[in-house]
């Protein structure tokens, strides 16, 4: 998983499909990121912030009881223990530091369920940056508590009333607003998506997951896991963990939600500044994704994943909502870790694949991308048949 070409292409995917008004900002960002990422001081500051503020390194946990149940050796990379409860913090800390380095004083972001919005508001608070988060109006109602969290953190949350009023529209709106304030404002995209340099930059910021995990597995005596499994919405946690194992023999598995399976059901297209695989109708209109987990409700996938799928270097699979709840329950009960519903997709696939695509005796690294606290009310309603 090297850098993309100069135009931000991973094979035929990626690139920069944005209005001319934003191109200078994308170019500036590209240059700024290259400069920062090559500057040992910046890199050290980024890692120090993640360590002292973000809770890194997150541990790798051997899941003994799950392993026994499945006939595998399963290790979990515990992004659920990172500040704000998921891997999202890695990216926002990087982008917030970069924002300050570029001399910008404000950060905007899109959010679906609110995870990335909360993380962005958090990093902005920490660095004293102003912060505005765009969130589909539908989501502001569904996730009112996360709206309140962002407000507590000093951010302004703007309900987006355009289109389907959900995540993809929040991205559109953030892009539109970015046009108006690009001089002093950085747009902090929440996954490995958007125009170059975002997919690459976000992957670089998230690669700390995989780099740490590889070292930590060595401490457990695991040279190379047979499988590295992560859930995929836009694909940032997957890209981050894959980055530590791309050069190994590990099989990389990205698990999408069946209702948002851009690799399984998507076609090449252009959205949100990138060429990638997208859910579309017969006329190239973007379809809404549907998943039990808001964080996987994205009709596309990061361009690098589309490329890895093309290459065959990573495999993308999908699981339905039905098995996700069971997976969440099983991990909770066996290991004392309530995973996020997003993460539970990866667990669900593993439960299904154990003894089959994942042969008995295999060593598996599961990226535990986030904690389930945000989801327990929803899971409770579902289990009670209330929704």
């Amino acid at each position, binding site marked *: 998983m090297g850098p993309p070409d100069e135009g931000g292409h991973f094979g035929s995917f990626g690139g920069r499909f944005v209005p*001319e*008004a934003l*191109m200078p900002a994308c170019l500036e960002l590209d240059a700024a990121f290259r400069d920062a990422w090559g500057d040992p001081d910046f890199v050290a500051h980024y890692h120090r912030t993640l360590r002292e503020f973000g809770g890194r390194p997150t541990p790798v946990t051997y899941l003994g009881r799950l392993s026994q149940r499945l006939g595998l050796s399963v290790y979990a990379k515990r992004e659920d223990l990172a500040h704000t409860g998921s891997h999202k913090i890695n990216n926002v800390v990087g982008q917030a530091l970069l924002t300050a380095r570029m001399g910008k004083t404000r950060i905007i972001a899109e959010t679906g369920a609110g995870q990335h919005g909360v993380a962005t508001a958090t990093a902005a608070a920490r660095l004293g940056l102003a912060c505005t988060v765009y969130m589909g109006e539908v989501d502001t109602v569904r996730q009112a508590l996360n709206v309140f969290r962002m407000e507590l953190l000093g951010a302004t949350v703007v309900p987006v009333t355009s*289109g389907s009023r959900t995540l993809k529209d929040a991205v559109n709106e953030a892009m539109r607003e970015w046009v108006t304030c690009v001089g002093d404002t950085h747009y902090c995209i929440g996954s490995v998506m958007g125009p170059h340099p975002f997919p690459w930059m976000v992957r670089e910021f998230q690669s700390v997951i995989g780099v740490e995990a590889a070292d930590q597995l060595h401490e457990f005596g695991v040279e190379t896991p047979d499988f590295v499994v992560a859930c995929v919405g836009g694909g940032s946690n997957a890209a981050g963990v894959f980055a530590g194992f791309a050069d190994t023999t590990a099989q990389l598995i990205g698990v999408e939600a069946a209702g948002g399976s851009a690799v399984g059901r998507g076609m090449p297209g252009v959205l949100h*500044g990138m060429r990638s695989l997208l859910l579309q109708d017969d*006329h*190239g*209109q973007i379809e809404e994704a549907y998943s039990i987990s808001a964080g996987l409700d994205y009709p596309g996938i990061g361009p690098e994943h589309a490329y890895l799928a093309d290459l065959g270097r990573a495999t993308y699979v999908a699981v339905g909502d039905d098995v996700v709840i069971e997976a969440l329950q099983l991990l909770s009960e066996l290991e004392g870790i309530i995973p996020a519903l997003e993460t539970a997709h990866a667990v669900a696939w593993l439960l299904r694949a154990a003894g089959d695509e994942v042969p008995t005796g295999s060593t598996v690294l599961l990226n535990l991308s986030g904690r389930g606290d945000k989801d327990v009310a929803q899971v409770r309603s579902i289990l009670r048949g209330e929704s």
Partner: protein
Amino acid sequence: MTTLDARLRDVRTRRKALVPYFIGGLTADWTTYVSAAILAGADVIEVGVPFSDPMMDGPVIQAGALRALANDVTLESICHDVSVASFEVPVVVMTYYNVLHHFGLARSAELLAASGVAGVIVPDLAIEELTPWREVATAADVATVLMVAPSSPIDRVRRIGALTQGFVYAAARMAVTGRAADVGDAERVVTSIRTVCDTPTYVGIGITTPDQASDAAAFGDGVIVGSALVQQILDGASAQDIEGSISTFREALDRTAPEA
């Protein structure tokens, strides 16, 4: 040089160009609105082909696009309408890249050309990603109109000036489509375009009133009027109402003498 280039240079010799924007398929009789506008003095018609995720459009055009999409409008249906209507002035399609990408680039260019469309504006197709489309479009004699933004540094203005066909779309402000109170940064943008190329330069993004059009025409070669008209149609205006509106814009522009 595409056919659009030739036609717009010709317009420039005569008057300031008036480019009203219509959403294809917004109403079943949308082409009658276009005809009314032409009657009232439009020089070019911009026809929006709706996309679900219009990154460069504000609330008015978003709402119009959603309504049109609910009418099952497609690239093909709009091209069909345009072809049937056979307008006397050049038609430029405004759409997002995915619409063309999905239909197939070469296939789209051929369809547009066959329907009598002279050019396209694809706001999310930056010059960096332009080549595949431009090749097939140029081969089909479909011009690709490029935009210069207030944020474009001079070297980009130069490259855009060299690549654009038909006209240069001078964005009056750092904003998406919508109504505004003035012509914003348009003069600065047009001035910088003038230093790099001689292509007709039309001012758009926020042009709402005839006075603004007149202001813009003082330095530009024409104006694009979008949200202001779409809002009227969304509010229930008839083709005749639109004819009236376009007339007032026409008059305002004609108050300004042509440059050339």
